[in-house]
């Protein structure tokens, strides 16, 4: 790679349209897929991606390289835009359904016939790390990350006291991280 993402972002900040286009090309599919995973709606997902790039282009100085990767920042922005759109569409009235029981990858896959699944090595690793979690831990991650549920919604749907939700999330995430590390090292969890 001849150019770091921080450099690319700097060019975007200075108003370089080609730089924004490069960034767009690089992340369009990932961010669209992510928005689609959370909304199951193609129009909304396009709007979300546009929202994100609108901010990248106009809200100068929003990204701080010392605080993490550009991709992480873009994903967080996409996530926030998605939550916002979902709330606006008022389809966030949370109801438990069996989608919460399945793991995130299968979830999106089964929720859309349009989903074109591309198997990748990273994906297989993460998948395998997810598979290594208990059913409850998979659910908590799904509710927390992909359904963006509130603290009390998570408590209610897992039948946990409010005070224990955070530690359960922590536990599930620690477990997941450990599994990812193990899998990446080539071990079998």
């Amino acid at each position, binding site marked *: 790679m001849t150019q770091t993402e921080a450099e690319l972002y700097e060019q975007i900040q200075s108003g370089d*349209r080609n730089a*924004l*286009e490069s960034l*767009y*090309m690089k992340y*369009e*599919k*990932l961010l*669209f*897929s*992510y928005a*689609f*995973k959370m909304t199951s709606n193609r129009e909304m*997902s396009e709007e979300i*991606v*546009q*929202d994100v790039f*609108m*901010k990248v*282009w*106009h*809200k*100068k100085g929003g990204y701080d390289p010392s*605080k*993490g*990767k550009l991709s*992480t920042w873009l*994903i967080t922005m996409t996530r*926030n*835009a998605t939550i*916002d*759109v979902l709330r*606006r569409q008022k389809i966030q009235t949370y109801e438990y359904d069996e989608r919460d029981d399945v793991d*995130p*990858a299968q979830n*999106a*896959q089964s929720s*859309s016939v349009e*989903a*074109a699944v*591309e198997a*990748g090595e*990273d*994906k297989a*690793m*993460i998948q395998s790390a*997810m598979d290594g979690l208990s059913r409850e831990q998979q659910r908590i991650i799904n509710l*927390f*990350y992909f359904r*963006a*549920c*509130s*603290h009390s919604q*998570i408590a209610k749907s897992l039948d946990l006291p409010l*005070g224990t939700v*955070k530690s359960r999330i*922590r536990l599930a*995430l620690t477990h*997941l*991280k450990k599994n990812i590390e193990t899998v990446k090292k080539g071990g079998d969890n």
Partner: protein
Amino acid sequence: MNHKEACDLLIDYYNDQLEPEEKEAFRQHLKTCDSCQEELAEWEALNAELIEAIPLVDPPEGMKNRVLGNVFSEETPQSDQKVQPMKKKQRSFRVPFMAVAAALLLSVIGNVYMLAGREETRDLAQVLLEEESAISLSPASETLDMDAKVAMHESEEGQTLVLEATNFTNLNEDEVYQVWLLREGEPYRAGTLVPNEEGQGYVVFNLDEETEIDWDMVAITVEPSPHNQLPEGDIVMSAEF
């Protein structure tokens, strides 16, 4: 609220479930709480890893052109500044303000908390959020099903009109939508509305800094030329302040 109670709001902060005041309060907490900062960064990083595992979906046909087209066309209102509706010198857009305002409008009002932290944004957000200050325009005829909402932002730098329009379609070749502010029947040109393919558009227009006018009315017309200094075409929507 004690420290631990504040930390307990992290989940709702991350999933954007807090009320505006709670959110602002939590932001203050976050500034000083290392453990919340760390945990939030960890959540974000791990989420980014998880995203690697989601099924990839092909974006819709033509999405790139639409999205980049819309993003870049945000800057077109600046060309309005060449037109001098009144004798007084007209301010140029301050880009950050416009950018924030544009992003804000595009994503509609619910989004403003995310952008808070800049005074200008917060001011604008408040203007837009207060129900009594955001005004919905009424269509001139029953058969028009377009929607538009306007808010006037006032600051030391002067007044800014922010207008959001949806369902603005059916323009003929060369026609444009123009926004006007009226005071005692006298129109002041307040920007050109350029809707996208979906009929959505918005205008962010800074008025002359010396003007501190109590406007009577806002109107949108269809004009045969974008440079008309006075309205010639039909009013499609209007509202009284």
